[in-house]
């Protein structure tokens, strides 16, 4: 059995300019932030991000790593909009392909199932369609015969294309060295589909344990990421900070507020970056600890 364990730094080494990167989690929940922070220090540019966007998108966009984002929002949950995202959008420095949250799910599912698209009602008549002419519709082929439904005869449906990813990265509570992983919080979101949609599949975890021992750390049915979905795992305690990652840690609301407040003002933002984001992950965690002790 392969040992898939590696480091966050080694994962970042694989991310190259021009790639399409899928980032798991949702909003400010269970984001692989340690890997995002590592990328801030890399030369990589021209990324396309595919994300239920949170501070992962705000930070990478602000750092100039991103040309294009495919998403339906970039939120901090308890704060409606990531200020770095707002600023980039209003400056016109990032291209956005905006999709409905549910279509996003179907796009990942289509890629994971290796079909070119999945049909939906969502998107029809909306700006998702009008702002991105590359999105197509498909005619319901069941106009007659045993499987037809007269109410949908003649229906055109939105054909959500497969969102194929070069690399996907997700963050979980526990992974094992063989690449199985367990989400102990209330929602595993779409992480299995991000991994399924990607060519290279990375899991970062609060804790990496011996292969085959996940059941000692929680109910086995929470181990929804099996090892056929993963290539590499890296342990990085606190690696989702400041996003929510229960039961290991709730969202650090105080720190998120510090981030969001700093992000609204260029000078304060520079000071924030200098204090928290200028060093490696150990330096980040230590700076957060120091900040916390001052509160």
């Amino acid at each position, binding site marked *: 059995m392969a040992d898939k364990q590696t480091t966050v730094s080694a994962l970042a080494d694989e991310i190259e300019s021009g790639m399409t990167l899928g980032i798991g989690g949702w909003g400010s929940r269970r984001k692989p932030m340690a890997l995002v922070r590592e990328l801030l220090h890399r030369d990589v540019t021209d990324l396309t991000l595919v994300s239920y966007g949170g501070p992962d998108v705000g930070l990478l966009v602000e750092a100039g790593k991103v040309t294009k984002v495919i998403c339906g*929002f970039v939120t901090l949950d308890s704060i409606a909009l990531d200020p770095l995202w707002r600023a980039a*959008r209003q400056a016109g420095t990032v291209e956005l392909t905006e999709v409905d949250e*549910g279509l996003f799910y179907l796009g990942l599912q289509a890629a994971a199932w290796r079909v070119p698209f999945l049909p939906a009602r969502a998107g029809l008549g909306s*700006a998702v369609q009008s702002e991105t002419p590359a999105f197509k519709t498909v005619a319901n082929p069941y106009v007659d015969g045993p499987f037809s439904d007269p109410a*949908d005869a003649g229906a055109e449906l939105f054909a959500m294309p497969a969102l194929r990813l070069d690399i996907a990265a997700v963050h979980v509570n526990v992974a094992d060295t063989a690449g199985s992983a367990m989400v102990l919080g209330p929602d595993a979101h779409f992480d299995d589909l991000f991994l399924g949609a990607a060519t290279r599949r990375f899991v970062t975890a609060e804790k990496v344990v011996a292969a085959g021992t996940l059941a000692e750390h929680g109910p086995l049915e929470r181990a929804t990421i099996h090892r056929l979905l993963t290539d590499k795992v890296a342990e990085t305690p606190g690696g989702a900070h400041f996003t929510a990652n229960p039961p290991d840690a709730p969202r650090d609301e105080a720190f998120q507020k510090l981030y969001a407040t700093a992000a609204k003002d260029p000078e304060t933002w520079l000071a924030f970056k200098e204090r928290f984001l200028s060093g490696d992950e150990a330096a980040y965690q230590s700076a957060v600890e120091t900040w916390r002790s001052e509160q």
Partner: protein
Amino acid sequence: MSDVTRADICTIACAEAWRGDGEVMASPFGSVPALGARLAKSTFAPDLVLTDGEAALVHGIPTLATRPNELVRESSVPYKTIFAIVWSGRRHIMMMASQVDQFGNQNIAAIGDHAKPKAQLVGVRGAPGNSVNHATSYWVPDHNPRSFVASVDVVCGVGNDRAAAAGPGASRFHDLRRVVSNLGVFDFGGPDGSMRLVSVHPGVEVADVVAATGFELAGIDGTVPTTRTPSDAELALMDELDPRGARHKEVAG
């Protein structure tokens, strides 16, 4: 009844949106709709299903101030299940609208040009899918010509005109119910599914509504009903379900 506030009236008007819905997921956005859904469930719509706002359906009726660790959760509904519910139609959402137009197209994504907006808002979120899959209502706490507009900048929630134009794929389950603003209640019973004034809140004149609306409203001729006032029992329930008065922070008056 002089101590009945505009927020109380708006709460009743929002609650009424769920009347007769039966066992569907009520998804309110904003404090006033959140209280309205709870009030409806406490009184005339007991089968409504509420969520914890994260990944579970809740048992009973939490207040707006109930802490997450005090909620009684009855089943797990991660986002994958939420979308299954959305696409099944067993949901009635009340979203907010930064802009809403004559046919109920809604914008929460951006003001100005989508490529480089004057103001970036929250994004399309789930509005395109919600609006063509299940009952949809809107709550606009600040009714003015910039929120009730002739044409929205980015269509998120799909209006009656665009749903019809897109054909049965979009229109089959498209079901715009009502818009509640701080001035009145509206439905889409006007010509070609356009917005119609249903009632004005106590103290609001029809002319106030017309002046605050950037398009032609149906239903403004003749006698326009006044939005009903909550009963004493309903007012007591509102205070119980909203002990910190969150509704009053959303609507003045």
